[in-house]
């Protein structure tokens, strides 16, 4: 017998028949409830909820067929197998039984073996049906959850990925309503200098995996554009971020543009996108602008190539960008809209109509088969700066040049000195000055050397000579551990002083580093003693090469370096 005991209803107006069936069913281990006519059968069904019903066809008050119809209705989508008990022989009559809702029949005299086999068969079917119902319910519930989550994701996505200044008068755009689900990103922001950065991105995949990458991308784009970073810096940052967070095989096909109104110039970086169109009013021609790079998120930072293409871009000229949804739009015959058709829409003399032409063309082609559901399209025009308006920032107030006149003092003590690396934070602060960005690497190396000198040689008193041999290295680090454990009331202080020169073409950066150590005999240090310091002394030659002047004070525990910097407002 199949494992779970079932509840079986026996409906027959003949008591001796009920007794026989009951005995057979109970022997199988199942439970029995009984009814003597059709009305009782329906009542028992409602009360006891039997799993299987043995139903006599001919019963007083309500016959088997009527009862079957009612019971099946009451059961709804639940499965309740009904086995008709009948002595009918005629095939038509038997068929009629099944039509009325019966699932099988059993003829008299009742054969124990056959009845048991039928009950077992229906028991298996019941189990399968119930399992499927449960699974379907779970799936439905999960679906509901997912749908809800996608709604939320869409709302967040819309806030992040499509804000910015897409509403500038020189931009026309169409954003696919399904961009959350097809990974399209369209961003625009003004730089402090007045030029505009635009980014069109197409993430691989669909749905949430595609949408997720857009968040950090947008954050970097807006953050760095507002601070006046160059397009190449921003692309490098985005590439590194995406490479870091996206799984292998996921990437973002991207086009980024820097549009300068003042210089009537456009700089473009394209990776992984199909050809875009550059229209020039002067010769009324459209040029293909091609992707020269891999999509973002594929290459490591060292392999990444931020090289851009630059074009003159005069009033009347237009640049068109689109996601591949346009090219891959299909008509009812399954044909692709394709790149050729797209470029052919630029025929005609009135460039003001180009944008609408593209959209109408795709819609006409696709017919009812989806229209511009999957289309993201952007038109950039060159206009006079007066049309755009100046950026809401006073150009002379320093937003362009950044903070150029300040002093910062940062002291690390004891436990913090032991465990915290202040270099990234300090470099960040220096990077807020646009003009210092071009010497960022230099500054980092400089600060790293100065810090290392101040902490290891100054505070911990370690002798760099030890590092000149392999054994020495191990000893060095052991001594370092000991010295760190014995640190009491020690410090290292950095002082930064940035000043602009009088004609605002640049200025000076002075860095003073002081430590609580015993210092060293700098007075007897000369350039030729470089060799005495072995592999890694206080790196004085290196430091000297990175700055304009290097001066020691006190007992050698205070050092001052000075560099000069040039004002660079990058358009």
């Amino acid at each position, binding site marked *: 017998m199949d494992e779970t005991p079932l509840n079986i209803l026996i409906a027959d107006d003949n008591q001796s028949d009920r*007794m026989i069936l009951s005995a057979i069913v109970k022997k199988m281990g199942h439970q029995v409830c009984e009814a003597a006519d059709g009305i009782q059968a329906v009542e028992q069904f409602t009360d006891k909820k039997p799993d299987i019903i043995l139903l006599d066809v*001919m019963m007083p008050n309500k016959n088997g067929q009527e009862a079957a119809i009612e019971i099946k209705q009451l059961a709804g989508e639940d499965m309740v197998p009904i086995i008709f008990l009948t002595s009918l022989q005629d095939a038509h009559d038997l068929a009629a039984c099944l039509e009325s809702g019966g699932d099988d029949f059993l003829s008299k005299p009742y054969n124990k073996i056959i009845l048991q086999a039928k009950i077992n068969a229906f028991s298996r079917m019941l189990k399968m049906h119930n399992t499927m119902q449960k699974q379907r319910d779970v799936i439905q519930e999960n679906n509901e959850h997912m749908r809800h989550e996608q709604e939320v994701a869409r709302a967040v996505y819309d806030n992040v990925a499509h804000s910015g200044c897409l509403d500038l008068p020189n931009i026309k755009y169409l954003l696919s309503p399904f961009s959350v689900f097809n990974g399209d990103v369209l961003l625009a922001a003004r730089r402090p200098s007045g030029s505009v950065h635009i980014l069109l991105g197409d993430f691989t995949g669909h749905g949430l995996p595609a949408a997720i990458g857009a968040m950090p991308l947008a954050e970097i784009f807006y953050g760095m554009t507002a601070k006046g970073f160059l397009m190449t810096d921003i692309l490098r940052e985005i590439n590194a971020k995406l490479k870091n967070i996206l799984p292998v095989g996921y990437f973002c096909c991207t086009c980024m543009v820097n549009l300068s109104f003042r210089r009537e110039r456009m700089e473009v970086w394209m990776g992984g996108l199909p050809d875009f169109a550059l229209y020039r009013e002067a010769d009324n021609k459209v040029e293909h602008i091609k992707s020269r790079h891999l999509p973002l998120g594929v290459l490591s930072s060292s392999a990444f190539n931020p090289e851009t293409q630059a074009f003159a871009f005069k009033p009347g000229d237009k640049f068109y960008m689109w996601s591949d949804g346009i090219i891959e739009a299909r008509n009812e015959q399954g044909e692709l809209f394709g790149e050729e058709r797209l470029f052919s829409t630029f025929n005609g003399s009135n460039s003001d109509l180009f944008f609408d032409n593209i959209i109408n063309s795709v819609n006409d082609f696709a017919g009812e088969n989806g229209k511009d559901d999957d289309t993201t399209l952007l038109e950039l025009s060159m206009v006079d700066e007066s049309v755009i308006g100046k950026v809401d920032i006073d150009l002379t107030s320093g937003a362009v040049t950044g903070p150029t006149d300040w002093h910062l003092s940062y002291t690390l003590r004891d436990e913090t000195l032991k465990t915290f690396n202040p270099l990234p934070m300090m470099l960040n602060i220096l990077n807020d000055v646009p003009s210092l960005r071009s010497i960022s690497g230099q500054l980092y190396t400089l600060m790293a050397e100065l810090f290392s000198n101040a902490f290891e040689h100054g505070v911990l008193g370690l002798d760099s000579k030890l590092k000149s041999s392999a054994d020495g290295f191990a000893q060095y680090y052991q001594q370092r551990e000991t010295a760190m454990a014995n640190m009491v009331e020690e410090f290292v202080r950095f002082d930064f002083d940035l000043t602009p020169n009088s004609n605002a073409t640049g200025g000076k950066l002075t860095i003073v580093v002081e430590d609580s150590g015993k210092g060293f005999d700098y007075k007897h240090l000369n350039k030729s003693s470089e060799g005495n310091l072995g592999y890694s002394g206080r790196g004085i030659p290196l430091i000297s090469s990175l700055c304009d002047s290097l001066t020691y004070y006190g007992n050698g525990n205070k050092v001052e370096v000075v560099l000069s910097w040039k004002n660079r407002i990058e358009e």
Partner: protein
Amino acid sequence: MSSLDLAQIQELKEIMEDAFDDLISTYLKDSEEKLVKLNQAISSQDSSEIAELAHSIKGASANIFAEELSELCRIVEDAGRANQVDNLSADLDAINTEFAKVKSELKALS
């Protein structure tokens, strides 16, 4: 010749175990009641009654493996359904006789 299929009855006994006697007495009691009513129905030539009662006894008898009795009831049931109930006295006699045999054989078993 036996009115009962003894081999099948033996199997029925195994299925019913202790309830076998109970089954037999229930069958006999019900069938006797229905037989009385059948006699009346045939007298009054009530076709639908005849068909219903004959059908019921037929089924129960089949399950008790009284095949001859079951077959006789079938004939009367068909007549009832066909509304040809004016000449059933011979069939009724046969049923009454066969039932008596079945009854005594069943009693002998329990």
